[in-house]
């Protein structure tokens, strides 16, 4: 039987899979894109994905300044999110 932290991490990974689909369909101009980036920036590191937190924080920081994220920032976020979504539960 998995420990409680593992169960919560699995739930987070499952949500990453949903987020990957939602971000893939959204534009960085969309409110949902900013909302997901902000949430991932604050949460991913707590579930063992610090690189995803950092990539999401870079996007979140740009959007907060009123600037669109760079292509490199968006690519890094999607790549890290894909890695987290593919992590074993």
């Amino acid at each position: 039987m998995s420990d409680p932290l593992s169960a919560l991490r699995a739930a987070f990974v499952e949500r990453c899979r949903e987020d990957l689909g939602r971000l893939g369909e959204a534009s960085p101009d969309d409110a949902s894109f900013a909302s997901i980036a902000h949430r991932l920036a604050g949460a991913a590191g707590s579930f063992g994905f610090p690189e995803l937190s950092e990539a999401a924080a870079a996007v979140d920081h740009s959007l907060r300044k009123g600037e669109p994220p760079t292509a490199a920032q968006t690519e890094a976020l999607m790549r890290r999110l894909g890695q987290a979504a593919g992590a074993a539960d």
Partner: protein
Amino acid sequence: MSKLCILHVDDDENIRALTALAFDLGNEAEVRSAASGAEALRLLADGFRPDLLLLDVMMPDMDGPTLLRRIRERSMSTPAVFMTAQTQDHEVARLLGLGAIGVVIKPFDPLALGGQILGLLRGAA
């Protein structure tokens, strides 16, 4: 001595679950969670009296600072700690200036959260 009672308010269900587990694992506190400022205000209006408020800053309907102001308007002086992903010094200073006893930077280490919060409470006592 009875266990510390915390009201944690965060719109992210993953973080609510992780925070509750973090305190449960350490047997340090009982955590009651609310998904929004409105839900938190309802709990307090119904008579719930926590020892500590743990408030996310960025929430869609009512942000943490607004929630704390609404709670203070009800003459409740419960110590408050903000949780934020904004790491800039000026943002942390702004939150402390609103009367919080501390700020927890997200993402946080779930295994260290209890000690961090208890340390803030001891420092404020």
